[in-house]
């Protein structure tokens, strides 16, 4: 049996090389300067409290036939910032959608502060979200909109779709948890014994930093150590370094969660699984997924450690629609927006699916 030879000098070389990279890395990091985020131009068309609804400016002129006439509203999660949808020129789901002729709107929830601590799920599902959609309907003259919900924003979108089905032409959910009680869901397990009432009472709004610590805790060795060691492999590539820093900025730019909203979401959805069980009520109105009657396209990521596929897939059985499609993207929770393959694959699939249902 041939065994690769072992060279003890190699270890020394490796250590020296690592040190050199580390030194070069420090210089490179110091020289990066300001990191630009976002690429597509947008304008604010509606605002309410902290939220701003943006319309993205079209970037292509497509023949009428190729366009999707119904406007698309993106409802992002309250966790992290929505610029993940348009991080940079070559990593932008929104740009991909614009290039394929979609009229795109995005809800930016802003940075909630102490004055927002008593905002509840009802404020979002029965207040902010309907107001944004009504505004798009008013602006475009379209009787309905297409709604794309992302992660927690997908869960809110499902609630909206169940309560206002007549307003939606189509619903797309991306990495959206529906059944929170599946065995793979580590966050649910960790929440099991947490006194959420006490948490909301003492922290007020849920600090973004605390949520970040929780997310890092899911894979602590990988996310707090190896990730930064790996960075040294690309330290000589300014573009790769800039991409890394942009992602780093997005990951830790975490708004606080309105305390009551967080408490309700974690208790009702995560602990009690009310959405899947059909027992969720908002201001006396039952949220029944059987009422989600419009076509649904459910996109999930096969290696998602935050929203495991098992949490998303049950939507097929729970939603009342007769037109259900799904797409299992081979990647993770973040890769579905920023990976190279996602840039082509995800917007293409979304637009193709919408085109067929735009009549």
């Amino acid at each position: 049996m041939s065994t690769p030879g072992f060279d003890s000098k190699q270890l020394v070389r490796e250590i020296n090389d690592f040190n050199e990279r580390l030194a070069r890395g420090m210089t490179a990091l110091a020289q990066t300067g300001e990191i630009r985020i976002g690429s597509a131009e947008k304008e604010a068309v509606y605002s309410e409290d902290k939220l701003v609804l943006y319309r993205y400016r079209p970037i292509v002129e497509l023949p009428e036939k190729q366009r999707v006439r119904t406007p698309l509203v993106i409802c992002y999660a309250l966790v992290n910032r929505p610029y993940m949808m348009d991080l940079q020129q070559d990593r932008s789901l929104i740009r991909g959608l614009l290039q394929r002729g979609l009229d795109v709107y995005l809800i930016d929830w802003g940075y909630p502060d102490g004055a927002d601590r008593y905002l509840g799920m009802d404020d979002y599902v029965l207040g902010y979200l309907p107001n944004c959609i009504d505004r798009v309907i008013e602006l475009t003259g379209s009787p309905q909109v297409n709604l794309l919900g992302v992660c927690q924003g997908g869960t809110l979108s499902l609630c909206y779709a169940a309560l206002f089905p007549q307003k939606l032409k189509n619903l797309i959910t991306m990495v959206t948890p529906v059944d929170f009680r599946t065995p793979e869901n580590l966050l649910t397990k960790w929440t099991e014994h947490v006194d959420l009432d006490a948490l909301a009472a003492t922290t007020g709004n849920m600090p973004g930093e605390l949520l970040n610590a929780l997310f890092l805790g899911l894979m602590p060795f990988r996310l707090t150590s190896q990730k930064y060691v790996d960075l040294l492999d690309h330290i000589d590539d300014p573009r790769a370094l800039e991409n890394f820093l942009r992602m780093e900025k997005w990951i830790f730019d975490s708004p606080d969660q309105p305390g009551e909203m967080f408490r309700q979401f974690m208790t009702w959805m995560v602990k009690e699984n009310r959405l899947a069980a059909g027992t969720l009520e908002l201001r006396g109105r039952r949220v029944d997924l059987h009422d989600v009657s419009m076509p649904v396209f459910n996109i999930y990521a096969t290696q998602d450690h935050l929203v495991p596929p098992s949490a998303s897939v049950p939507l097929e059985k729970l939603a009342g629609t007769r037109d259900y499609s799904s797409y299992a993207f081979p990647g993770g929770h973040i890769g579905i927006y920023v990976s190279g393959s996602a840039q082509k694959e995800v917007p293409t699939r979304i637009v193709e699916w919408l085109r067929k249902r735009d009549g």
Partner: protein
Amino acid sequence: MGDSSATDDATSLSWAQQWIEQQRALLEQAAQADAAHAGSKQAGSEQVNGLGSQWVDLGKAYLAGLMQMAQGLGAGPAAGGAGPRPPEEMLEAWKAAWSNAMSQATAPGGWQELLNRTPPLGLFREQTEAWRAVAAARADMERLEQELAAVMRRVQSEALVLLEERVKARAGGDNPVQGFRELYDLWVQCSEQVFSTVAHSAAYAHLQGELGNASMRLRARMQKVIEQGLKQFDLPTRSELNSVHQQLRLLKQKVAALDQKGAAAGHGPAESRPPPVSRKQASTSRPASAGTKRKSSAAARPARKRSR
């Protein structure tokens, strides 16, 4: 050739093994540091006990003095032999009453324990109680933090065992670990694997939850103390602000409901009123830079505000 390969394997294994042993030593040091930390807390508590013991000694000396005085009185002519000896009986009763408390207090850690269990009295009763609650919550949280740290040390320790197995298996096959980076990546892989099993366990979820709850208790108790302080200076407290925010939310909901009623009655909905437009709201945003929340340029189309 075969001998040379065997030597290579052995060398490869030995430096990797050395690294693993170093990590074990570091883990051991961390465990000792934690134990020392716990020890220093114990020392703090012993200081309190020491002070308590001094008080006990003083008390004993005081009682002994009184006893001597009583015996002196009892030996005097007024005592008259077999009659009642009130000072002595009284002192015996006092002594019996206190000796029980003191024996508890002089047990290891007893004085602090006794103080903790004694309800605070007097002018600063409320403040004392609040601070004691903070101390108890802090102790509870630190205990749970240490438990969690021990779990993480166990994870790392088990990960090293797994790593050792994999390094040996690879050295025995045709894919020995060639360098530190490879070893490090393998270590991360092993650590995540072991951690994943632990993280999914009911015991870990329970411990995480308990620690979270303990930290909330500490936070709540500290908030109480801080609010007491703020009131002394007539400054607003979080509780007062909460009350205002709750009232504000209810008022907003009422206004929104009235708007809807008005619209339904044909008096014109809130939406039809001229919307307040600010430059900030009516902006065209260009790609923002890291470090800025939102950048705006000239107004392109007015944004609208609407009440809910």
